[in-house]
């Protein structure tokens, strides 16, 4: 009986329910995708040898943040579900159902919804991970061989997390339901406002919020690696506390002040819009703070991820030679000749019958070998000629390069004067040192050329340290960071925006009577819609704005890492703004439908 009632109830609110359900699907999908990467040990080993130490940390941090966001998301989504269904539950009670029975029903509904949505989400997640790893990674020149779409452990974690949180949310709803009087379940009432006591203290609170935030920003801009721990703590908690105070006191005080300017506010529904906003801000302090801080982190993640790309060019300067060709063929030479930016230097050697390789000192004196020097202060590289005595003794960096032509049959290598060299009886052979000044353009071709020579152990060893390999490794790493940044950033944004959305929508039942009243007072339904758009617009913009300012200052902490940490920041800003706008538009559409339902509209 109850089950049937429950189903017909859901049927009636199908559209609202669909929004909730798809929200849950998206949340579990994102959660799964993230898990499928972070719970996949092969991923780290195979792809990011250099950043390997950093990545688990980033992913661990991301995991925690994502879990927090998802948790709040589920709680708010479910309280939206409760507010949607509370009238039905009230009806069941009047029909004689026991509260205990209804409690079970509530928990079951929440669990079944959560489970169904999670299963669909995982299914979509598997599909999308497949597509993403194909498309996105190729775009980023990445070869993430171990990025499987189907990761059993990830499925397990995702299911577990969502079931546990759904259960918690269900229990939360039950206790809220048990505490509500039957009459309040049946009748929509204005939510009683919590009045703001001690306006002076409030203003002080708001101002101290500003001061703390300013202090945090100052710390970020003067971030030094030495005092990093203390400074980071100040920056992080300062931003958190400052934002909280801002949302709890500053903005509402500001609005209260504006409301007293009758010349401005006594126009149409402005008074109402501001009043609504003032109290909503207080109600929403927690979620707005979390939204703004995580919004900042998400934007930061994307920007920093992107920033590694700007370092790419600089990082390729860490090597002088791009490639060593120990066993050149005519074909290889032809191919190299076609590369405009490649300078090829040819060296000769002789291999005698006893397995000794001879180099000609004169040749190395004429065509000097180069080595790289790093200047930590300016973070630049310069190229120096290797000292000749070192080369003659085949010491230092020259060991490696000259070793390329060696193999297991070679007993020893010698660098001799020209006269001695001429006397050596044996086959003359050549090897090539290639320096390419535009690796971004040529590295794929150089890689192919490298594959045309026999891949002896020595050849592989030397070339793994030359420009082409280094370049490849760096863009691999950059790609990983970029991928992580975008993934984390977009996932957070989607979660945050929809958490805010559901929080707003779950208030709709409480707000309805107010709009009804205004309607009775003669407000046009068009003005009511406009008032809603403004109110929610400001509600969405404020945390976005605070988060954006957080990022602008927060990136200052990366000044020692990047030349310009703000490089290309407009791109994530634009992407975020567009996505955020879409969520905002969806929210006002849904909210308007909920609060303005069954009025006469033109």
């Amino acid at each position, binding site marked *: 009986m109850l089950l049937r009632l429950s189903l017909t109830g859901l049927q009636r609110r199908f559209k609202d329910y669909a929004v909730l359900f798809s929200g849950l699907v998206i949340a579990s999908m994102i959660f799964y995708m993230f898990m499928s990467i972070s719970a996949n040990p092969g991923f780290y080993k195979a792809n990011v040898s250099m950043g390997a130490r950093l990545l688990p940390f980033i992913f661990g941090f991301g995991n925690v943040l994502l879990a927090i966001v998802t948790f709040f998301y589920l709680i708010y989504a479910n309280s939206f579900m409760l507010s949607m269904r509370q009238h039905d539950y009230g009806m069941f009670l009047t029909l004689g159902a026991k509260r205990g029975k209804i409690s079970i029903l509530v928990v079951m509904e929440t669990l079944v919804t959560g489970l169904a949505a999670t299963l669909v989400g995982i299914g979509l997640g598997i599909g999308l991970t497949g597509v993403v790893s194909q498309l996105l990674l190729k775009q980023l020149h990445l070869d993430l061989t171990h990025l499987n779409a189907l990761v059993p452990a990830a499925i397990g974690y995702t299911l577990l997390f969502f079931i546990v949180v759904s259960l918690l949310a269900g229990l939360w709803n039950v206790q809220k339901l048990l505490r509500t009087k039957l009459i309040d379940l049946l009748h929509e009432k204005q939510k009683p*406002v919590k*009045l703001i006591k001690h306006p002076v203290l409030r203003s002080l609170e708001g101002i101290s919020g500003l001061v703390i935030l300013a202090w945090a920003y100052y710390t970020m801009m003067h971030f030094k690696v030495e005092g990093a721990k203390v400074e980071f703590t100040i920056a992080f908690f300062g931003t958190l506390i400052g934002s909280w105070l801002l949302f709890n006191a500053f903005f509402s005080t500001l609005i209260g002040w504006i409301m007293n300017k*009758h010349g401005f506010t006594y126009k*149409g529904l402005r*008074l109402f819009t501001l*009043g609504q906003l003032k109290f909503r801000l207080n109600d929403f302090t927690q979620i707005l703070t979390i939204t703004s801080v995580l919004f900042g982190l998400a934007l930061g993640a994307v920007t920093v991820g992107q920033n590694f790309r700007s370092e790419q060019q600089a990082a390729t300067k860490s090597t002088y030679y791009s490639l060593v060709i120990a066993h050149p063929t005519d074909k290889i030479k032809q191919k190299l000749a076609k590369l405009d930016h490649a300078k090829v230097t040819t060296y000769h050697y002789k291999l005698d019958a006893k397995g000794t390789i001879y180099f000609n000192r004169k040749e190395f004196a004429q065509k000097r070998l180069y080595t790289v020097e790093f200047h930590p202060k300016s973070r630049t590289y310069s190229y120096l000629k290797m000292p000749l005595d070192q080369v003659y003794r085949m010491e230092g960096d020259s060991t490696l390069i000259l070793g390329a032509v060696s193999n297991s049959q070679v007993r020893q290598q010698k660098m001799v004067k020209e006269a001695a060299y001429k006397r050596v009886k044996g086959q003359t052979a050549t090897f090539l040192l290639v320096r390419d000044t535009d690796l971004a353009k040529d590295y794929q071709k150089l890689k192919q050329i490298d594959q045309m020579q026999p891949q002896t152990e020595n050849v592989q060893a030397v070339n793994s340290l030359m420009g082409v390999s280094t370049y490849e490794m760096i863009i691999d790493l950059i790609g990983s960071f970029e991928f992580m940044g975008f993934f984390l950033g977009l996932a957070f944004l989607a979660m945050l925006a929809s958490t805010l959305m559901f929080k707003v929508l779950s208030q709709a039942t409480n707000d309805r009577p*107010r709009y009804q009243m205004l309607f009775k*007072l*003669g*407000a046009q339904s068009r003005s009511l819609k406009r008032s809603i758009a403004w109110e929610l617009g400001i509600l969405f913009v404020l945390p976005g704005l605070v988060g954006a300012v957080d990022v602008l200052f927060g990136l200052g902490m990366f000044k020692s890492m990047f030349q310009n940490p703000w490089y290309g920041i407009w791109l994530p800003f634009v992407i975020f703004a567009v996505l955020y706008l879409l969520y905002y538009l969806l929210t006002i559409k849904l909210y308007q439908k909920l609060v303005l339902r069954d009025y006469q509209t033109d």
Partner: protein
Amino acid sequence: MTKILKVEQITKTYGKKGQKQYQALKGLSFAVEEGEFTAIMGASGSGKTTLLNILSTLDRPTSGKVEIGGKDLSHLKNKEMADFRSQSIGFIFQDFNLLENLTNRQNIALPLTLRGVSASRIDKLVDEIAAKLEISAILDKYPVEVSGGQKQRIAAARALVHSPAILLADEPTGALDSHSARELLNIMTLLNERDGVTTLMVTHDPFSASFANRILFIKDGKIGEELVKGELDRKAFYHKLIEHLGTEEE
């Protein structure tokens, strides 16, 4: 005397065609003169709220004609109805219907801001009406900070601040204790007698109804009898009403 409100043969049927329908109003007619204080009494479910919703343009009659201040409401578009509401009608509801997130002053100012009155004039009008209703001292408090009786006076101030053609009240004393109810009714009477505010009050409480000059009884969706105060004082009118209701019951 001019008729400020004219209701001619209105009917109201709830429910869509083809579904279960219920006729709440069945050809109801009456009129209210300017400056009158009229009460409408009727049992629960007799159609009082339905009638008031139609008079206040929140709902449309299925058939029939309503005229307020010489304006025929049947041809108004929804948009024009909203404008009409904000200009010509004042409302008092049983449960106050104040916006809790605005101060009392702001609540009272709202109908004026909707009409685009200038800020300085709004301030003046709000202070004036507040003085009349003796609520000047609580203007800057929020509705939750004042008593039920005070809330209803705020609501009355909001209903009257824009000098509407008619004040409509649906069970205005329903949520008040007897002392606050009497206070409110006294003020409504005073406003009616001194300022000539035309008032139409719906109630099922004989005590409240006895403050009116004239009582209409609504029964089965139609206006039945009518009781006029005439030269009687309020107490005598009250007794006459009780007597009348007694004979009705038999």
